[in-house]
């Protein structure tokens, strides 16, 4: 109980600032809209009413949160340990393709619960396996993990493309993809909602990781190594172990997010599918200052923007590109609010 209070108190501190950020970004976006000849009020009305004021908007945003939360959980670990895994997109794809490729083979053989657990684990293993090379190169030879994970991303795109075009191609002639899982072999919805249980997995993961980092001896090791490697060595911490473990965990979480999307959303792995959640999750984790609780509302907001923004662009007839501009402005003003918070202790 006490733990939760502390976590949520910190989270509140981190979340109040964004109110400013949202307003500022809306104003800046509004100016752009005016310049290019659109009515900002109408645009924003549509954004909020459709994105947050309709059942559909809320439901879809909640679903979109799941991969962001799961991926963020891994990123909190790896960034805290001072390692830069920016190849989450590739690890996501590998986890997804592994789950999607194996699911049809086992779906009739396992009880549904174990089927999901096995596929989740496979996703995790897939993502983790994709990070093995960068992790070993980093731990053994201090080879820069930023480039290696980035390169592994490109390789993952091509590798998964190969898999679904050749060995895993379920129906030659259709768009290259793995076998489409029947609806009943996908993640069930949380009762009374249309949101699949991936959301709960995401929430649990990010909270667990929060306490893992803050409250466990291993978490202390990770933070220690991330803050000051030399001191960690001095204190007898096995840095290589920390690097490899942190990277494997983060890759695993990215892969789990992939399995989640296959089982919860897509039902299969398609060529050319690359949602690049890592590019949202990375700034999100920084904005949340690695606080698992703060990640949750931020992830919701990001999801709301991408879902509501798309709905809005059609309703208000604003080119959909404006959504990207708005997302960028949000990111930037979230950053600015961090600055103001430090400066004025306003929040």
């Amino acid at each position, binding site marked *: 109980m006490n733990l939760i209070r502390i976590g949520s108190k910190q989270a509140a501190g981190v979340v109040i600032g964004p109110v400013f950020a949202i307003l500022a970004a809306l104003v800046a976006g509004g100016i752009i809209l005016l310049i290019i000849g659109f009515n900002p009020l109408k645009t924003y009305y549509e954004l909020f009413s459709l994105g947050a004021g309709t059942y*559909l908007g809320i439901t*879809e945003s909640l679903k*979109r949160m799941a991969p962001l939360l799961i991926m963020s959980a891994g990123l909190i670990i790896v960034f805290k340990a001072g390692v830069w895994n920016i190849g989450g997109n590739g690890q996501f794809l590998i986890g997804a393709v592994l789950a999607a490729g194996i699911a049809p083979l086992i779906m009739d053989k396992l009880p549904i619960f174990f089927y999901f657990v096995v596929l989740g684990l496979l996703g995790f293993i897939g993502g983790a396996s994709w990070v093995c090379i960068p992790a070993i190169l980093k731990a053994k030879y201090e080879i820069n993990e930023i480039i290696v994970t980035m390169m592994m991303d490109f390789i993952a795109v091509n590798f998964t493309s190969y898999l679904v075009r050749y060995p895993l191609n379920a129906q*030659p002639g259709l*768009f290259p993809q793995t076998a489409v899982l029947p*609806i009943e072999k996908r993640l069930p919805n949380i009762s009374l909602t249309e949101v699949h249980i991936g959301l709960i997995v995401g929430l649990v993961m990010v909270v667990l990781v929060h306490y893992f980092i803050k409250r466990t001896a291993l978490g202390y090791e990770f933070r220690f190594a991330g803050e000051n490697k030399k001191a960690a060595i001095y204190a007898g911490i096995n840095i290589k172990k920390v690097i490899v473990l942190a990277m494997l965990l983060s890759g695993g979480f990215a892969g789990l997010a992939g399995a989640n999307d296959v089982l919860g959303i897509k039902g299969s792995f398609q*060529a050319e599918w690359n949602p690049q959640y890592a590019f949202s999750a990375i700034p999100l984790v920084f904005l949340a200052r690695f606080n698992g609780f703060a990640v949750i509302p931020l992830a919701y907001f990001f999801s709301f923007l991408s879902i509501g923004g798309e*709905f809005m662009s059609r309703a208000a007839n604003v080119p959909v590109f404006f959504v990207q501009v708005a997302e960028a402005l949000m990111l930037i003003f979230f950053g600015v609010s961090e600055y103001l918070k430090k400066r004025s202790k306003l929040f």
Partner: protein
Amino acid sequence: TKAPAIPPHPGARPLKVAVVVPASSTDQGWNQMGVDGLRELKDKWHLTIEVAENQGYGDIKPVLRDLARKGFDLIIAHASGYQTVTPEVAVERDVRVAVVENPAAVRPGLVSNYEGEAQKGAYLAGVLAAKMTRTNVVGCVTSAEVPDWNRMTVGFMEGLHSINPKINFLYNVIGEASYEDAIGGKRNTEAQIAAGADVIFGMGDGASFGIMKACEENRAKDGGKVWFIDVIGDKTGIDRKQILLASVLWNFDVVYEMMLIDIYSDRFGDDYRQTLENGGIELAVYKEIPSVARAAMKQAEEGIKNGRIKVSNIADTREMRSYMRRLFK
């Protein structure tokens, strides 16, 4: 050859139709043609139209559900990548949808399929290319290996082969999903031209502009022009070097209109074809060509129409690749 007038249907309200496309609706290619096809029908059918563009190949279910929520009578999911997800939403929300190239998904009243016999148009393009090449090297540059593109590649190869089995056929893929990679398109095309190609068959939305640019900038080995054969759209407006030889046009209004008619007559849920016969597919030739070429094309077109010439319909990459190896050793 356009479709019949609106069937009389008193009291029927104007329909609401939406189209969902993966990239920008102004790409002068697949996406734009898919949207333009609907726009062409707007006035005639008093349609209410909505365009959802730039949807990528991610999760399009939220958009489909939003359109269903808004009460659209028909949602056209205009990308082969949407062909299995969209029917799921059709069932879930009880909304009419149309998908591309997935005839198995057809469900009366709910899901229609449409596809172009583009391989036949591409066959004619292949015949034209074989007749126009001076170097006997013909190139094909594509931005991805997806069913549409694969079909056209196969048709094009067969067309080439029918005229000259000894022709050198070059085939390049720009990259994974590099529909918009204009520079990649340019580089690949330049390399093909350097390898001797003087006719380039280019498939690739935004990337086509790069392919076209390479044809404009470079001379063939004999010092003459490099011809560019485009697909889906019509780029004559930007053809300032006069290298755009022809285009395999896809007129989607043809199939869209069939769907509208069927909605009115409660027969929606069918497999619709764009064919040479109904004008859904045509090879538009923009330049003066020698009469031998014209004759060969005419002969091929007739042959296709009367069934004497069979054009293979191959959508799968692996199959297409092995066929390519067999055809041009």
